[in-house]
């Protein structure tokens, strides 16, 4: 086979090797995370205040990203939107991956009827279209932040479960698992100390990918009119409520769209270009 060159030149630092794309992606994610954390301190206007008589106003001094359909300041709304998009997605993906991975590992280690039941049940859940599920749940319990997070999490648990279970089943066949079992170790130790460290990297990559899916699903749900309580809005909701401005490229709809794309593309690129630990034996 011919020699493969890495897609982009890599540099090394602190025992890991990085490449430029990964670093840029990480910086964008970091920037949005900081915005999410400090949004309430840096927004120039309250997100509910109508500051412009016009609607879909253009970018100008004072209203750097123009105004939305009600004449509210878009910059403030996008910055605060970061908090909700990033926050809700992160919370949901954390719950989904934590539960999914834990269940997947337990199923793989325990096997037998527990494995069968869990797999069947979660497979069944998987067959329900996610957006419809979201619609039904939100129709049933109303849309609040906890409800949204839980709904999104539940939708993605089966996927995380399948993924983790497949990995864990492979690890489970390894001899060190057998050694640990005949040592008399508990299931908790087996999944926590023996399996998890071996699947953590792909699980984290999966975490990132699922984060992207959740951001997109959240914006999809917002598009269908489910989401946060006004005047709060995540990016998807911002796109939705301002979609009327799309025909004349109003910043009110373009900016949140770009924000969604920048976050999801960055996470994807970061996953594809994760820093690699250098396993390099001397001599």
């Amino acid at each position, binding site marked *: *086979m*011919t*020699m*493969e060159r890495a897609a982009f030149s*890599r540099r*090394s630092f602190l025992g890991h*090797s990085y490449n430029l794309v990964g670093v840029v992606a990480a910086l964008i994610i970091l920037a949005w995370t900081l915005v999410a954390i400090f949004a309430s301190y840096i927004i120039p206007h309250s997100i509910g205040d109508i500051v412009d008589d016009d609607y879909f106003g253009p970018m100008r001094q004072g209203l750097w990203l123009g105004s939305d359909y009600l004449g509210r300041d878009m910059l403030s709304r996008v910055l605060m939107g970061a908090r909700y998009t990033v926050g809700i997605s992160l919370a949901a993906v954390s719950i989904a991956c934590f539960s999914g991975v834990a269940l997947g590992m337990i199923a793989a280690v325990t096997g037998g009827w527990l494995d069968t039941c869990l797999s069947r049940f979660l497979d069944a859940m998987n067959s329900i279209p996610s957006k419809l599920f979201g619609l039904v749940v939100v129709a049933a319990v109303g849309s609040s932040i906890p409800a949204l997070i839980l709904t999104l999490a539940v939708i993605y648990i089966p996927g995380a479960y399948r993924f983790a279970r497949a990995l864990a089943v492979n690890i489970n066949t*390894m*001899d*060190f698992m*057998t*050694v*640990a*079992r*005949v*040592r*008399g*170790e508990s299931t908790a130790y087996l999944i926590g*100390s*023996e399996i998890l*460290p*071996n699947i*953590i990297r792909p699980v984290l990559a999966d975490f990132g990918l699922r984060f992207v899916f959740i951001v997109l699903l959240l914006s999809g749900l917002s598009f269908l009119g489910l989401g946060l309580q006004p005047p709060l809005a995540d990016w998807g909701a911002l796109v939705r409520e301002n979609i009327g401005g799309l025909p004349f490229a109003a910043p009110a709809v373009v900016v949140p769209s770009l924000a969604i794309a920048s976050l999801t593309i960055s996470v994807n690129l970061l996953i594809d270009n994760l820093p*690699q*630990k*250098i*396993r*390099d*034996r001397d001599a």
Partner: protein
Amino acid sequence: MNNLVEVRNLKIEATTDAGRVVEIIKGVSLDIADGEIVALIGESGSGKTTVALSLMGHARPGCRITGGEINVNGKNMAALSEKERAKLRGTDIAYVPQSAAASFNPASTIMEQVIEVTRIHSLMPPEQARKRAVELFWALSLPDPDGIGARYPHQVSGGQLQRLAAAMALIGDPKLVIFDEPTTALDVTTQIDVLKAFKSVMRADGIAGVYVSHDLAVVAQIADRIIVLKGGEVQETGTTAEILTSAKHPYTRELLAAFEPKQRQAHADAEAATNQLLRIDNITAGYGAVRDDGLPLIRAVDTVSMVVEKGRNLGVIGESGCGKSTLARVIAGIHPAAAGDIVFDGKPLQRAAGKRSRDQLREMQIVFQYADTALNPAKPVEDIIARPLVFYHGLDRQARSKRVDELLDMVRLPKSLRYRYPAELSGGQKQRVNFARALAADPKLIICDEITSALDTVVASAVIELLKELQRELGLSYIFISHDLSVVEAICDEIMVMYNGQRVEQITPDKVKAATHPYSKLLFSSVPKLDPTWLDGLVRDPELVSQYGHR
């Protein structure tokens, strides 16, 4: 240029994860004459496979040929373009891989793959190619030569695949065939058939060959000349006879020494006779659906009984699939027996490990063949060794650290290794860590399941020496499961021969030559000797072979 192959000052570099470039072949030169078979021998990491593959102009991903000339049949493979190299591959130079099982495409029939070379290079019409393939199947003494081509790789045994791989290499009428450890993965009884087949075909057609191996005894049977490699450099070159009889290089001598019969330790027989550590009676275990009588459909272990005495070792030998590994797992409780009793240290043991007490588990440890999978790659050595110390002995941090040092010392590993991860260790080091973990439990019995099979000869014999020493110091007992007679002979007091799930014979090492059971006879006679004439002179009872040889 007189020789078919002339390699001059070959240099190959590899790039590590960090982007550091390491020279792994440091100026190798070698010649191969027409029709000559040259062996490349050395431990793993010596660069023997890398050199062999470079003869085809191929370097594995991450490697690059950086210097020197590789003249094969008058063409410098190092200088050709990839397209030009492709033209020569399969036609001028062919390759027989280490693991034929992995090198056959599982989704395609054997015949398709054997004649693929003729398709790629448009050598002959497919009909003719198939005919030629069948001829080769006959020549390689494959069973059912007319029908075997229609099968898929998984339907054929390992030894047959290895010969089919040879047919795949020979169909393009190459001038040079590269054999990359082609018999390493085979049972001894099978190895003989494969070796014989290779040798006769190569001789008949006057084909030159490169035979890569770490096993001197095997190489002795087939090679005209031997080149000893270590650390990417040629250590010594000579005819087979020269190397076997008057090796000059210390490394070569070390290799030879590993074949010398070991001094077995003497036991105080009187004491041992009365002290049964483990007794199993009529154990049956297997796989598949449980039948009405409570026994499984497929019996991997069939009513086997045996005894291990305190401070003494029992060897279990047999070919792959004979049930010896299942037996080990049954004893350890990993694979609970369907019937039979296990008595350990005077007390009956539960069949399943999960039902045994913590002390019972602690006193019987099992060490697996592949240290790669037996050590958790995500944990450093110290965590791996320390876990039993916490789990069984509840040692605190300080005591644990001290004990880890002691254990590393016991298995002759430097203390600095404790921070390394398994991937950063060599095969021998891994197996020592594997063993240290078993020792950490303070066991009475260690079941060693093929622990030396994945190791180079020299390393393996060092591990065996270590085991012996530890036994002297700690008064352990071993159950030693292996397909390699020399290993079992070296360490065991009793040898149990298994065939098809059953115990066929139990004898002491000194009586190996006087085995009574026909299978034992066949098995023992199949172990290659460091004698170039051994293979040619070997006469085997054809009836035995047809009854027990798995072809």
